[in-house]
Every structure is written in structure tokens, then in C-alpha cells.
């Protein structure tokens, strides 16, 4: 491999990381909020798929992709609200409900999405971070979407809010100890319901990115596990929104290795690179599970790490 090809691969990985990471980022931020409140929503994979379908359909009918993004968020919050409501019933297991919501969300998305596989909907625009270099290849590789910046902004706001606002304190307290939240007169169920609903909204927006920007079409194989990986990623990010962004970029880069190598004609091991994000996630889970640092940051009420 000569230097030129290496540079193209590197730019393709960086550009790919910026593109691929956005859905990871939104789902991880949504899950981060939900888990901070002490509940796990494993159903965000279904939310991601339903968000992608809704965004595509609404964008197709209205002609406005941003309306599609908003609709995807709303669809996601409906699923989140369902999860939040069912889990507040006594004796109901949030992990099992998450699995059910995953299947339900995917089923509903495929059901209504069948009509939208063929038609072409207006996509979200993009701008290039590499335009100043004047190099066409670099400019194309570094195309990014405003949603990436929105995601980063949401992460910064969330991190600030957790640390500095009354609402942030209430969410953290609910997640760390339900009895103390009750003692303070906070409705634990309501806080968790809202956290799951807003988390669902964010995951839905992440789905909109999949269908309206990259890969930029709607089909049934659009998401295969990104939503689930994002959930695993929150543990790695130790429940910090800023670290969620960094972890999402890392995952995006891992996911971009395969296509980047393919772009210069290396197709060997394509399926291995397709599996790379899953293997990376598993490796990260093995490395971070049970580590003392992760255990220090885990919200006390969480069932997933027990």
C-alpha cells in the first residue's frame, strides 16, 4: 500500500467515523439518560429502526427531511413511553420488556415500512469539513451532517445539566437510590417514565440519521444491532454523556474500516470487518465489566450490571 492509498484510507476512516457514529451517539445519549434514572431500555434497537422508517416516510410525504427527523423522535418517544409505563408496574422486568419492545418496534417498522422501500425521499443536507483543503477526495470523505453537531451539543448540555441543574440532580438521585428520591418527595416512576421517553426521542432521531443521511435509504436491513451496541457502549462510557460521544466516534471508526478498505479495492475479509463493531463491543464489555472504575460510576438502581 503506497502513501496515497494510506491517506485515502485514513481520511475514509475519519470521515466514516464522523458519519457512522451519529446514530450510535444519539442512541447512547438516550440510553445514558434512561440508565442515569435507574432503568435499562434494551428496546432502543427497535426504536432506532422505527425512527428510521418514520423519518423516511414523513420526509417522503411532506418533502421536508427535518420534519421527518422530528417525527422519528416522536415515534421513538412513543416507544419509550410504552417501555416507561409498563416497567412502572410492579414485578415487571425492564430487561425483558426491552427485548419485547425491540421485537415490537422492529415489527411495526417493517409492517409500515414495506411501502417505502422503493420510493425516494428527500434526504438531509450535508457540508464538508475538508472543503478548505481544495482536495476533492478529502472534501468528499469528510462530508458531515448537522445532526452530528446537534448530537455533540446534546451531550454537552446533558453533561452540564447532570452536574449543575436541579433536574440533573433529581435524575441522578433517582438512579442511585430510589428510597432517597422518595424521601425527597420525588416520584421515581414519573422521573423514570420521562427519562425513558426522552431517551426514546433521542434514539428515534438517531434512526432518522440512518435513513435520511447515511446510508440514506430505508430497507429492512438498515440497522443490525447498532441500537444494541449503543446500549453496551454506555457501560463503556461509564454513564458520562461526553464519553458517550467519544465512544460513539470510536465505534464509527471501527465500522468504517471495512468500507474504507473496500474503497481502495481491498475486499478480503469484508465480512470480518462487518463483524468488527460487534467483536469490538463484546471486547469492550469484557474489559469494562466488573472493572472498579465502572463499578464506581454505575447508577445504584441499575439492574444491568448486577
Amino acid at each position, binding site marked *: 500500500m503506497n502513501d496515497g492509498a494510506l491517506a485515502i484510507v485514513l481520511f475514509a476512516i475519519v470521515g466514516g467515523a464522523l458519519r457512522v457514529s451519529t446514530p450510535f451517539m444519539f442512541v447512547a445519549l438516550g440510553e445514558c439518560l434512561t440508565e442515569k434514572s435507574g432503568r435499562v431500555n434494551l428496546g432502543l434497537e427497535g426504536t432506532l429502526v422505527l425512527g428510521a422508517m418514520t423519518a423516511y416516510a414523513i420526509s417522503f410525504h411532506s418533502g421536508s427531511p427535518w420534519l421527518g427527523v422530528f417525527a422519528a423522535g416522536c415515534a421513538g418517544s412513543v416507544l419509550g413511553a410504552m417501555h416507561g409505563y409498563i416497567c412502572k*408496574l410492579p414485578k415487571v422486568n425492564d430487561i425483558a420488556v426491552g427485548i419485547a419492545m425491540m421485537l415490537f418496534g422492529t415489527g411495526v417498522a417493517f409492517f409500515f415500512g414495506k411501502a417505502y422501500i422503493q420510493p425516494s425521499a428527500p434526504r438531509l443536507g450535508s457540508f464538508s469539513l475538508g472543503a478548505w483543503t481544495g482536495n476533492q477526495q478529502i472534501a468528499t470523505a469528510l462530508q458531515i451532517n448537522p445532526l452530528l453537531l446537534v448530537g455533540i451539543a446534546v451531550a454537552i448540555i446533558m453533561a452540564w445539566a447532570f452536574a449543575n441543574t436541579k433536574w440533573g440532580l433529581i435524575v441522578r438521585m433517582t438512579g442511585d437510590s430510589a428510597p432517597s428520591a422518595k424521601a425527597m418527595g420525588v416520584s421515581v416512576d414519573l422521573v423514570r417514565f420521562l427519562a425513558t421517553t426522552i431517551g426514546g426521542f433521542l434514539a428515534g432521531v438517531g434512526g432518522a440519521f440512518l435513513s435520511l443521511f447515511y446510508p440514506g435509504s430505508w430497507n429492512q436491513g438498515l440497522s443490525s444491532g447498532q441500537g444494541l451496541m449503543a446500549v453496551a457502549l454506555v457501560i463503556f462510557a461509564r454513564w458520562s454523556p461526553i464519553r458517550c460521544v467519544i465512544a460513539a466516534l470510536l465505534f464509527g471508526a471501527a465500522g468504517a474500516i471495512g468500507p474504507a478498505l473496500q474503497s481502495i479495492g481491498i475486499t478480503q475479509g469484508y465480512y470480518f470487518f462487518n463483524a468488527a463493531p460487534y467483536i469490538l463491543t463484546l471486547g469492550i464489555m469484557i474489559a469494562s465489566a466488573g472493572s472498579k472504575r465502572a463499578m464506581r460510576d454505575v447508577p445504584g438502581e441499575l439492574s444491568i450490571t448486577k
Partner: protein
Amino acid sequence: MADVAEPLRAGAIAPNHWADLSIRIRRSAEFVAIPLFALAVSAVLFSVFLFLLGKSPLDFYSLVYRGGFGTAFSLQNTFQRSAPLILTALAVAIPARIGLVIIGGEGALVLGGFVSAAVAIPLVLGKLPPIPTLIIMAIVGSFVGAVWIGIVGYLRYARGVNETISSLLMTYIGIAIMNFFVEGSLRDLTNPNKPSTMPIGDNYMVGKIPGTEVHWGLAAGIVLAIVLHILMTRTTFGFAVRVSGGNPRAALAQGLPVGKLIVICCMIAGACAGLAGFFEVAAIQGRANASLAAGYGFTGILVAFLARHNPIAIIPVAIMFGGIVASGGLVQRRMDLPDATVLVLQGLTFVVLLASETLYGRFKIFQVGGSAERT
């Protein structure tokens, strides 16, 4: 004296015996009644869903009946599809007994099926007779599945890695491994349509149960369900598993090898799913390709939860869902509904079923005076 004592004793024992039985019936009635109630509620909700879309719910249910259970042909088709469902549901139910929620049956099925198809290639080319070939395929397929889910169990015990997430990740990895080989070195180049391994050939296929069109996988599933039920309820191993699932700390304090039990349960689960993959290859497809990932692993999760992780109850529930899956094509054609209709129905049923967990212990009729609450 003896003449008098005899009827007295009989009279003293008999009512106790009957009271015992009635207590047991009333207790287990709850475990049947509440899931049935959840099924009914989801049927009603799904009817509303269809009604809102302008489709007739009555048409839907009568088509499901006709396509799944109505004729001898559709019933055999249903049994055919229940076989992998029984096995993948066992793959959820057995780890559930020790407190693990494993949802990676699909991956073990795909990988078990793929490896059994791959191992068959040299055996078929080497002209080994069908019976030993199939036995080797079945053993290798279940072994691969057992290792695959066994890894999940080991990670759970040794590192505390959440088994639900890791098992699903392993599913994606398993499917990627199969695609890697099926579209690469093991691809049958004489078949241009769909990347597949070399077909094992008609002579090597698993036969039908005599007098039916149903392959032996159904019998294997039923036998395995009964054996595992006995293992879980009538043996020391099963008792140790249930203790560990109920209270891991108490189990550890008793000196039970909890880690070993977790890995064994996961390996049993993986072997069941791998065996399902073997039957899909050796009785239905004849080769390994992407059709192996048909969603049996995911429907199996719902079957297991609906059967409350009881291996015997899994059999009728799997047949019911086998029928719903089997009728999918008919419903699709006659009512102009997408094939995902079945997925919506399954997802809805699953959500309602889990919500119904909250009803346990709320009805007086099932409660027996002085009994400890069971959840």
C-alpha cells in the same frame, strides 16, 4: 379394632390428598390463566390495529386458523415449523431457570446449522453412509451451538458481562461468520442464485416421521423438552440450578458450583439451538445459507416466556406459534398485508405478556390460605 381403624384411616388421608391436589391446581391455574388472559388481550389489541387499517380481524384469525391448523396439509406445515421453535425456546428456558435472560438462540441456530452443513461436505464427498453422516452433523452442530452460548455463560460468570446483550452480539457475529464462509471459501459455485454451501443431497436428508410429512426434528424437540423437564424438576442437578437461579448467594454459601451450573445451562441451551440449526439444514434447506436466519431464535424467546420457561408447556405454545408463522404466507396473499404482520402480532403479544406479570398474586381465587407468595 382393625375393622374400624381401616375406613377411618382412609377417610383421614383422602380429604388431605384432595386438598393438596386442589391447592396445587389452584396455584398452577394462575400460571395458565394469566398468560391466556394476556394472549386474549393481545388478540383484541391486534384486532383493533387491523380494524384501524381497514382490514377485517375476523378474516385474519380465520385465515390464521386455515393456514395453520385447518387442513391436514397446513397442520403438517405447522408442525414442521414448531420443531425449531421448541428447540430455540428451550434455549431460552433452560438458562432462565438459573436466572439468565439469553436471547442469542438465533446465532447458535445459524452457526450450528452452518457448521453441520460444512462438516457434511467432506463426509458426503467421501461417500460415508447417510446415517453416520447425519449423526456426526447433529453432534457437531449441537456442540458448536453449546460452545457459542457457553461462552456467553462463561463471560457472565467470570467477568459479569451482561448475558442478554452479549448473546445478541454473538448472534450478529455468528451470522457474519456464516456469511464470510458461505460467500467465500465454502460457496457452492454451481449455484449462482444465492450464496450457499454445497447441498448435502437428497440421500442425506433427514427423513419424515412415518405416515406424515413432518421431519424427525419435531420428535427430537418433544423428546428433548420432556428430558429437560425431568432434568430440571426431578434431579439433583435441576434442584441445584433452581436454587442458584432463586438465590445465587445462598447457593454459593451452600457450596454449589454456581459458575459451572451457569455454563452447563448455557451449553444445554446452545446445544438445543444448534440442533435446531442442524435440522433446518438436514431436513429443510439441504444447505446452509442466509435463510437459516429466519427469526426462529427470536420467536423462540416469546414462546419460552409465554410457557413460563416450562419445557413441557413450550411444546403446545411452540405449535401455536408455528401455526401463526406457517399461516403468514396465506394471510399475506389473501389480505394484502406485509409479511411483517406476524412480527407485529408477536411483538404486541410479548409486550402484553410481560405487562401481565404484574397480575400475579392479585387474584384471590388463585391464592391458597397461608401459602407463601410465589413469583
